[in-house]
């Protein structure tokens, strides 16, 4: 187990290292110069050189990269005119655009993304597993058909369409809810939930469809297994068979998907965030890409990578906890 964790962490570090390397290479190859953009119109060559130096883009790319890694591990100092700015570890540098530390930008926006992910995931799981079980048990044929139809619809409709329809219905036509604006949980939990309700529903529409499909297939597959027949042959009540024997097997494939979905919502629910005015990490990334804000892009990508690596590890641990046949080594 300890050996497994060490190997896992080592692997994660390697993945993240590879990720930053590729990112740096891509940006170096990109044709535009961030210093020119920052300097603005009517920029003199002298000023441009100063900006370059302040941004740290006048060094060769491998030196920049080495500085970046050094900042990540030990912190680094930036020249800022006559002064020196210290950026403590883990230093992701300063945004070219706003000059704020990237770590601060990320920590500002992380709660928004976490809120979005947790709520959407909880809703998707409840609805998805519920619908999947209802149709998978095939008690009523019409119910199975209905759920299948809804699942296909959920799959087929893009999130922005669902989002816009929700906004139109609840905020414009019915006027049950105000237009969403993010309120931190610590300020007012009720308003927090109220404002996040529509984005949660929008995301859950698609995810619940996926979960329902997996649950349905999983429960049907498990119910056809020999050990379920044994349980029946020993007089166990059907309800007990379903919940204590079959449900567990049916949940296995869902574990991995859920873990990866959490990571995905937290970093790349761009459409949802934009539509519902949520200042999350996805929005940050899109803005940064448009402005060629290299430190922010690298920061967000690194966070994405970290989350996905962690999500995968969590999925593996959960998997082993559910299925005793799985051994982590």
């Amino acid at each position, binding site marked *: 187990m300890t050996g497994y964790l060490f190997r896992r962490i080592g692997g994660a570090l390697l993945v993240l290292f590879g990720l930053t390397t590729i990112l740096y290479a891509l940006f170096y190859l990109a044709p535009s110069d961030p210093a020119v953009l920052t300097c603005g119109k009517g920029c003199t060559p002298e000023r441009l050189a100063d900006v370059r130096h302040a941004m740290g883009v006048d060094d060769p790319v491998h030196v920049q990269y080495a500085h970046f890694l050094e900042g990540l591990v030990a912190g680094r100092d930036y020249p800022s005119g006559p002064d020196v700015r210290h950026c403590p570890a883990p230093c992701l540098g300063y945004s070219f655009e706003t000059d704020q530390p990237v770590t601060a930008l990320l920590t500002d926006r992380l709660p928004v993304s976490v809120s979005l992910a947790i709520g959407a995931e909880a809703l998707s799981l409840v609805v998805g597993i519920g619908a999947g079980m209802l149709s998978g048990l095939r008690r009523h044929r019409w119910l199975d058909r209905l759920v299948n139809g809804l699942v296909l619809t959920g799959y087929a409709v893009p999130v922005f369409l669902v989002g816009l329809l929700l906004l139109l219905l609840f905020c414009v036509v019915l006027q049950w809810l105000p237009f969403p604006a993010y309120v931190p949980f610590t300020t007012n939990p009720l308003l927090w939930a109220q404002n996040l309700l529509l984005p949660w529903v929008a995301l859950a529409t698609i995810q619940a469809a996926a979960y329902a499909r997996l649950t349905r297939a999983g429960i049907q597959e498990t119910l056809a297994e020999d050990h379920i027949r044994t349980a029946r*042959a020993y007089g166990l009540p059907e309800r*007990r068979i379903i919940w204590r024997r079959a449900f567990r097997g049916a949940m296995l494939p869902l574990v991995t998907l859920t873990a990866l979905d959490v990571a995905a919502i937290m970093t790349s629910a761009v459409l949802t965030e934009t539509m519902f005015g949520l200042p999350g990490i996805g929005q940050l990334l899109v803005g940064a890409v448009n402005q060629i804000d290299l430190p922010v892009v690298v920061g967000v990508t690194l966070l994405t990578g970290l989350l996905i690596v962690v999500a995968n590890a969590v999925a593996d641990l959960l998997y082993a906890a559910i299925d005793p046949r799985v051994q982590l080594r």
Partner: protein
Amino acid sequence: MTTEPVDNQPEVSVPGATLAPTHRGGGGGGARKSLKIENLRIGFGDTRAVDGLSFELPPGGAVGIVGESGSGKSATALALLGLHQNATVTGRISFGGTDLTTLDDREWRRIRGARIAMVFQEPLTALSPFHRIGDQIAEVYRIHTGATRRAARLRAVEVLKQVHIPDAERRARSYPHQFSGGMRQRALIAMALACRPQVIVADEPTTALDVTVQAQILDLLDEVRSTTGAGLLLISHDLGVVAGSADSVVVMRNGRAVEQGPTESVLVTPREAYTRELIAAVPHPNPPRTVEGEPLLRLTDVRKHFKLPRRGRVDAVDGVTLDVRRGETLGIAGESGTGKTTLARMMVGLVEPSAGKITFDGADIARRRGRSVQMVFQDPLSSLNPRRTVGESIADPLRLQGVRDPRARVLSLLERVGLSPREYDRYPHQLSGGMRQRVGIARALAPSPRLIVCDEPVSSLDVTTQAQILALLEDLRSTLDLTLVVVSHDLAVLRQIADRVAVLSGGAVVELGDTARVYEQPEHPYTKELLAAIPVADPLEARRLRALRRSRLV
């Protein structure tokens, strides 16, 4: 049925202090009841699986049902527990005066596991992989008796002891995948015993097991029957399995009982042609044949090691030296895990030995490609490409040799192995198991080999089909001047087909000699153990062997 006296039951005799009852009351018990099946019919849509079957299992008796696949024997077993979901079941299944076919689902649940308990075929998949073995047994006990958790756990350990699981307290906390195949089957039998049922239905309880383990499980079922007084319905495709354990036998074919009666009279003096056919199909010793050909395939101190990640090294084959003589059939006998398949694959050059030398006609096997050595695989369905027709599969080796239009040759090969030319354009799934194995043999014959290695060529087949395939192999060997190596776990099969037998154990040959000598005067203790475990179709001989096995245990 549901109102049954539970407390005035005659105490079932259970030997040994470990079997002290912890929770008497609920569960099975009651006066001993007989199970009587009258005119049972089971249909799935338009197909009739069972068509008018009648037999009786007296209290504490043992009835064997024998039949080939598709004879309706498993459908019968499921009907006894009311487990059919999409079938129409008619007729009477009376259990101590109650007709079980009239029960509703709740009433059925009180029978299942408590009065009639089932032991299934595949012990790995028949137990839940997510729960500990002790917990699964305890759950069944609790459902039927309402015992406390603690009492149920004790009962689980008690029945695990009863089926001779060593260190039962600790092993009750294991998961099924941590048990060996034989132990899992014991655990299933323990589960069946938990509620002291009056009838145990065992559906092919030993099919997935090695021959020595099979003998142990059959002995255990016999022992359990005499110690608990439960009746036993033993279902098998193997006459030998039933012969030693059942008082009476029902021979089934196409959903009907072809013949039934006391075991001795059915198996020793059968009246019906089909029963005689079944008995004749059981492998029987052939007159000995001594082949003194010069060595064709020579193995010299051949070894194969596999390295497993983080689990060290496995010595699958550990120093095998033997010659395969030109024109003979060499049998290689061994249980699972003895390295017999690895050895077979090395003989045809599919697996490279870690050490040692294999020569064919004096040349290193590793340098030869195809042609003169061919292989017939165990599972003909998975070893044929499902997306290609049978003819195309047989033509493959011919095309490799550069034959432009192999169709004519393939058609003659089909005919040679007893298939009609129209099978050429059919797909593997459209053929029966026996036909598929014929295709596998035809494919091996295609490049006109001199040696064919057969890895468990008949283990997935019914007994009558098995006899036909063995006859075909013998015929091919003599008419085509072939040399055969037949690898099998089934010693009866080898006794029929092999001229010499090598017994494998732990990756090494422990005994090698002429078939008649090895079977009649085995020298190595492992060979003796294997031979005592072979199920034989003669009831008297079967009981003698059981007594022999018991005397060795004590």
